């Protein structure tokens, strides 16, 4: 049963990612990227990390995808220039994919399927965040504040003297 789900979600995610990388119209690419993110969130659900899946939908689809479409809206050009595909990039990507696959299949990974895991509750994640990971949490808070202020300053209109 989980193999059927795995194959279906894998096909969905990779097809959406390919569409996002190769479609010519920017809006369609951004929306396929949102679908690919939902596919990755489905993978997280399959792996048993439901909290990460929900955070993925919340942050990536609800925030990053909306940011991307807003930016597409604000930087529109009137004429769509013919997007000449650069083939060297495709070659490099294929080479890296081949290299990664070789590395994966050569490594001695645990052949047995996953050991039965205790369900990861939100309480457990909350406890870890507040005890062992409290410093990274504060640092992420600082980074997010800095990014917020920085992004606002970058797009503020300059005051004319």
């Amino acid at each position, binding site marked *: 049963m*989980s193999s059927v789900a*795995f194959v279906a979600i*894998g096909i969905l995610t*990779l097809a959406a*990612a*390919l569409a*996002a*990388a*190769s479609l010519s119209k*920017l809006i369609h*690419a*951004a929306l396929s*990227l949102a679908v*690919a*993110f939902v596919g*990755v969130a489905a*993978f*997280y659900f399959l*792996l*048993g*990390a439901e*909290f*990460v899946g929900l*955070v*993925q939908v919340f942050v*990536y689809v609800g925030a*990053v995808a909306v*940011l*991307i479409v*807003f*930016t597409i809206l*604000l930087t529109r050009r009137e004429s769509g*220039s013919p*997007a000449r595909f650069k083939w060297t*990039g*495709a070659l490099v*990507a294929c080479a890296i*994919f081949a290299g990664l*696959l070789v590395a*994966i*299949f050569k490594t001695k*990974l645990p*052949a047995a*399927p*996953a050991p039965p*895991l*205790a369900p990861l509750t939100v309480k*457990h*994640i909350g406890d*870890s965040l507040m005890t062992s*990971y409290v410093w*990274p949490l504060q640092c*992420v808070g600082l*980074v*997010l504040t800095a*990014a917020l202020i*920085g*992004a606002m300053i*970058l*797009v503020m209109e300059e005051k004319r003297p």
Partner: protein
Amino acid sequence: MTPTLTHFLAVSAALFSIGLLAALSRRHAIFILIGIEMMLAAANLNFVAFWRFGPPSPQPVGVMVAIFSIAIAAAEAAVGLALVIAVYRHFRTSNVDKLNAMKG
């Protein structure tokens, strides 16, 4: 054929290389950002897959790293897109090939 770690790693490697394809072979700045976000999502998938198939540990390390990585990716997307808007306002183009004022 239950999915094992190899399958998940193969899928995440494919997602990573598709992201790399998008980042390397397009000329519009936002396409490059789309590729970068895809690469980050693939790396997070790797972390969570290794957490699931790895030895049981008291702290869910892979999940924690994935959560922090998602937060940082959101911050990076915000700043990157602000940069694209600022550059567009100045140069009136989002074609990265034309942004060569510092060349030479």
